[in-house]
């Protein structure tokens, strides 16, 4: 911004060029090293492998090829097949659907918690976090039991007439989304709550003073203020949810292949590392692309957030 004066004293000290470098190295060095060794280098490795060919007995070897990517796009050994594009689409739908449901559930919840008297707020936040204390698998199995034909939930639903008595609620898409929402809700509630806590209510009053009714006050004066939390929360849900395959497997009846288990299959049973790497890379690309679209849209609505 403003032209910094040469040799300006910051933080009450003046460092030489070498001192600056040393300080940077000591403070940021370890984390940069960590990210490089354990994230960046493996990622480059995966990227390289995705262009290699599967070896005779697994592993990978030359020549370089685009084959793994074209195969994923649908041109397989047996002509064109939508199998893999469908997998990626399914993961996008699962991720986006979960994010949407979590958002709808988290909005009222975050406002409710923020409206509680001080001492109940922390209690409520702890309650939101409690599911994290239980292993994901155990929670998911618990839903299997809760949604089984003879459980009281299923019976109650049948009694209301939503399903035939005796039919189970699981496996089904419904069960999958129940499991997903329960799993990812805290990820969006927490950032959203911190945004709701910071709301400047005088802005809502100003909107009302200027003629906005309740709905428009929310839309024009409150929603823009919680946008940062909402965006962060949706991203935190969207990314892991798109890679999730355990929950769809356990609650969907193990019939559907998602991005996650497609990758796992290639590195495991199929021993096709190059193809697995290609799926992983494409999956990452899809996540980044959806984040980009989302950020652009949210950015339009919420101003300079991202």
């Amino acid at each position, binding site marked *: 911004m403003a032209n910094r004066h040469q040799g300006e004293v910051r933080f009450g000290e003046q460092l030489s060029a070498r001192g600056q470098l040393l300080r940077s190295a000591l403070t940021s060095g370890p984390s940069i090293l960590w990210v490089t060794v354990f994230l960046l280098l493996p990622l480059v490795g995966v990227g390289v492998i995705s262009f290699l060919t599967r070896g005779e007995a697994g592993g990978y070897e030359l020549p370089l090829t685009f084959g793994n990517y074209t195969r994923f796009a649908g041109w397989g050994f047996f002509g064109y097949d939508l199998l893999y594009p469908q997998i990626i689409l399914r993961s996008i739908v699962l991720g986006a659907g979960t994010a949407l449901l979590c958002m709808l559930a988290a909005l009222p919840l975050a406002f409710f918690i923020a409206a509680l008297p001080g001492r109940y707020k922390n209690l409520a936040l702890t309650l939101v976090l409690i599911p994290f204390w239980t292993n994901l698998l155990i929670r998911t199995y618990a839903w299997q039991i809760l949604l089984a034909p003879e459980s009281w939930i299923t019976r109650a639903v049948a009694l209301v007439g939503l399903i035939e008595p005796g039919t189970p609620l699981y496996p089904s898409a419904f069960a999958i989304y129940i499991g997903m929402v329960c799993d990812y809700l805290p990820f969006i509630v927490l950032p959203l709550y911190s945004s709701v806590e910071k709301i400047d209510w005088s*802005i809502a009053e*100003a909107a*009302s*003073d*200027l003629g*906005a*009714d309740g709905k428009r006050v929310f839309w024009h004066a409150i929603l*823009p203020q919680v946008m940062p939390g909402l965006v962060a929360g949706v991203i935190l849900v969207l990314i892991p949810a798109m890679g999730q395959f355990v929950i769809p497997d356990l609650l969907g009846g193990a019939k559907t292949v998602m991005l996650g288990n497609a990758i796992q299959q290639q590195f495991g049973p199929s021993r096709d590392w190059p193809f697995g790497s290609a799926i992983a890379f494409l999956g990452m690309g899809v996540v980044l692309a959806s984040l980009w679209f989302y950020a652009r849209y949210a950015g339009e609505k919420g101003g300079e957030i991202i």
Partner: protein
Amino acid sequence: MAIQTPAIEVENLVRQFGDVFALDHVSVSIRKGEFFSLLGPSGCGKTTLLRCIGGLDIPDEGVIRIDGTDAREIPAHKRPVNTVFQSYALFPHLTVRGNIAFGLQMKKVAKPEIEERVKRVMDMVQIAKLADRKPAQLSGGQKQRVALARAIVNEPSVLLLDEPLGALDLKLRKELQIELLALQRRLGITFVYVTHDQEEALVMSDRIAVMRAGKIEQMGEAEALYENPRTRYVSTFLGSCNLLEATVRQRTPTGAVVQTTVGELRVEGSIPDRNKFTLAIRPEKVALCAPGESAGENRIKVKVVEVIYIGSETHYVLKAGEQPLSAEAMNVKVGHQGFDIGQDAVVHLPAAGLLVLDD
């Protein structure tokens, strides 16, 4: 002359927060086109009264009429009033133009008309150059102008201002006071102005209501209020005042002679039936003279304890025996004003300047 409907009529308004009366049976009538100030320290209920008029707070009892219409059933977003908030409360995600257009958009005014009115108001408060900025890119004074423009563009019949200049530095505040006043005269909109700054209230208002603990303590034109405070509270909140406890010695046709801690004084005007009351005199009405210099009634020997020189005038802390007195004098002489700490002097308390208070 036909009786004009008041812009705002408040009757017996009560607003309670727990055990505290933020408004304790407040009644006030504000005329059309008037610059009316609610003056008082924080917590006196002035902002609550403003919020009740704006519909942002709901009174527990009492009636509010806006232009003669009972406003109790009208929700905030339908009242013909607009508010300038203390914190400005600008929409952070909208540009200056977007902020100002908001009210008209909510009322579904046609686009070309919105554009035209927004432009006119931006010119009026001199922010046309800032049209495309976001609030975060504005200075305090600029934000204040945007907040003002956002309210007046709606052409409300009453504009409510909640300490709009409170966050600005002194110089800017004084400039904007003058501008705001000029704007009010030009637009002819009724202004209800909340402030804790007595000088601001005096400079700007047609009438002032001094509030204390949820009640209006005294109401009147600026000059009348300053020259004739009726209670200790008003006399010391609106400017400063010397207070003297007085006992009646002798009643005369034009007033009375009273005994105070500084000696016997002659008082003019109507004297209450009580024999004990409090006298008030403004420091600038206390005339400080050198011993032996000029005559006059109610003369008291004093010692100069403190001299506070502020350029155009000097404030003196004096002691008449044990009774402290303050005096203020314009520095009209050329050179030294003639009083030093520790010096003996005489003050003259003109009978007309001695006010009898109600409490």
